[in-house]
C-alpha cells in the first residue's frame, strides 16, 4: 500500500508534546521508518506563533523536499492586510508547493464565515483548494456546520474530529455536502472505517496520522485490515487525497 498522510506537522509546539518533530528531515526519517511515502504537512507556528510567519517557516522547511512533502498554509481574516490578497496568495501557494489551507479560528480569535474570510473562501471554492478544519481544538462543530451551510461547495477536510463520539457530528456533514472528507487520524472507532465506506463511500475518507501528536502506525494498521475492498483501502491510503489535489486549480 502507498500512504499519503493528509495530516502531520513539524515544529516545536508552545505546549510540549512528548516527541515533537522539529524539522522536515526528522519527519521524513520517521515517515521512512513507518513506510509513508508522502505527507501534507503544516507548521505548528502557523497556529502557535502567527499565520504569516508560520506559513513562511513551512515554505522554507519543505523547499528541499517537495517530492514528498506538500504544504498546508493557514488562513485568517485579512481586513488588516496581514496576508496577500487571494490572487497573490494563491500564486504564492503554487510557488511554495502549498496545496491546501487550514483555519484555526478559536485560538486566532475570529469567526470563520463570509464577513471575516469571504474573499479567500470564495477563491478556495472557485479553485477547489481544500480547507482543513481542526474541528475539536480550533473550530468547533457549530462553526463547521455554519461554514459549510454558507459555502456548500467548499472542499473541506474534517480533521481533529476527536476520538470520542465522532459519528453523530461527522455523518450529517458527509451526507449533506459532497465535497466534505474525513481525515481518519482520530477516527479510531472500531468498525468506523467500514461504516463510512458503507454509508457514504470510501472516497470520503483520507488517511491521516496527526503525527507527531499521534504515532504513525495506528491508522496504517487499522486501514490495512479494514473490512473494505483492497481498492477502497488504497483510495483512502493515498488515492483520495491525490484526487483532491489533482482536481485543484491553483
Amino acid at each position: 500500500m502507498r500512504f499519503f498522510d493528509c495530516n502531520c506537522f513539524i515544529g516545536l509546539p508552545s505546549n510540549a508534546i512528548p516527541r515533537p518533530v522539529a524539522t522536515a528531515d526528522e519527519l521524513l526519517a520517521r515517515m521512512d521508518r513507518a513506510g509513508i511515502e508522502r505527507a501534507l504537512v503544516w507548521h505548528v507556528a502557523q497556529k502557535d506563533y502567527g499565520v504569516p510567519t508560520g506559513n513562511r517557516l513551512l515554505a522554507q522547511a519543505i523547499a528541499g523536499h517537495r517530492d514528498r512533502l506538500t504544504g498546508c498554509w493557514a488562513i485568517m481574516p485579512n481586513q488588516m492586510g496581514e496576508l496577500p490578497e487571494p490572487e497573490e496568495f494563491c500564486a504564492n501557494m503554487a510557488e511554495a508547493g502549498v496545496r491546501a489551507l487550514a483555519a484555526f479560528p478559536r485560538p486566532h480569535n475570529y469567526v470563520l464565515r463570509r464577513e471575516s474570510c469571504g474573499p479567500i473562501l470564495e477563491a478556495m471554492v472557485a479553485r477547489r483548494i481544500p480547507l482543513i478544519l481542526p474541528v475539536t481544538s480550533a473550530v468547533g462543530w457549530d462553526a463547521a456546520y455554519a461554514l459549510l451551510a454558507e459555502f456548500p461547495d467548499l472542499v473541506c477536510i474534517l480533521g481533529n474530529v476527536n476520538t470520542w463520539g465522532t459519528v453523530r457530528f461527522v455523518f450529517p456533514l458527509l451526507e449533506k455536502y459532497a465535497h466534505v472528507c474525513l481525515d481518519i487520524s482520530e477516527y479510531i472507532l472500531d468498525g468506523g472505517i467500514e461504516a463510512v465506506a458503507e454509508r457514504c463511500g470510501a472516497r470520503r475518507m483520507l488517511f491521516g496520522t496527526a503525527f507527531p501528536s499521534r504515532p504513525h502506525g495506528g491508522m496504517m494498521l487499522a486501514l490495512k485490515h479494514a473490512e473494505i475492498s483492497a481498492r477502497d483501502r488504497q483510495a483512502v491510503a493515498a488515492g483520495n487525497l491525490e484526487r483532491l489535489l489533482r482536481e485543484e486549480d491553483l
Partner: protein
Amino acid sequence: MKTGTPIRPGSKTAAEFWRTGRSRTCPVYNMHAHLGDFPSMYVPRADPAGLVHSMDVAGVRMSCFAHRADTMPELGTVPTIEAVRAFPDRLRAYLWVNPHYPDLVARELAEFDGLRDVFVGLKVHPDSHEVPLTDERYRRALEFAEERGLMVLSHTYDGSKFNGPEQVRRTLEKYTSIRFLMGHSLKINWHEAAAVARDHPHAYLELTGVLGQWGAVDILCEEAGSDRMLFGTDLPIYGNHQGIGHLLSADITDKDIHSICHRNAEKLLREAGVRV
C-alpha cells in the same frame, strides 16, 4: 523512500500483524473493553458477537469487559453473564460498580462468587459517577476485591478530583492485595503514572487512550517497565488494530510488546483462575 516492514522495520511480530492482521506468536489480551449502549455515541460493534469478530481479525485471544448494564438497577448483570457464557473462551467481565446504588452493589457482590466463570474483577469509573475512588460509597466493593485479591479496573485521569493521582495513591496504599489496573494510566501525566506503578507493585498501567499519544508508551516503559503495562482500547469504542499499530510504533523492544500484549495479562488472568 526506504522499504521494509511498514510501521516497525525488522520486527517479525510487526510483519505478522501487517501481513495477516494478527500474530501467531504474539496473541493480544484486551484488558479494557465494554459492552452495552453508549448514550454519547454510535458504536457499530457494541454487541458480544461484534466484539468477538473484532477480536478475531486482530488476533485478540481474550477481552475483559465491563457492561454498562451492571450499573443500571433495571438491567443488572444478566447481559454480562449472557455475553461471557456465549463466548466462554474469549470473554471475561469486570463487575461494574455503581456507588450510587448500594443495594444493587450488595446484590451483585453477593452473586459474584457464584459467577467466577464470568467475573474476574471489578470496574469503577469515579469520574462518570462523580464519586471519589476514596469515598465511603466505594469501600464495600474495594474491601470485597481486597479480600479476594481481585483485579480492579479503575478509570484514572490526571487532574481529576475523583480518580486523579491522589485518589489512586490513597487507594493503592489502603488496598494492597488487589491488582489495580489504572485505566488510561492517569492520562496525560505519564511520569506520575509511572511513579505510581513504581511505588506500588500491585498497580498496572492500562493503555487505553495512552497508545494514541506518540511517545507516551515509551515513557511508561522506560520509567515503570513493560512488565507493568497492559494492552487495552476501550473496545468496541476504539479498535484493536489502531491500538496495536500505535503500540508497534513505539521505540521499545519486541520483548516489551509481548509483555504488554499478552504476558502480563496472562499472569493476571491465571491468578484470577482463568485458563489461558
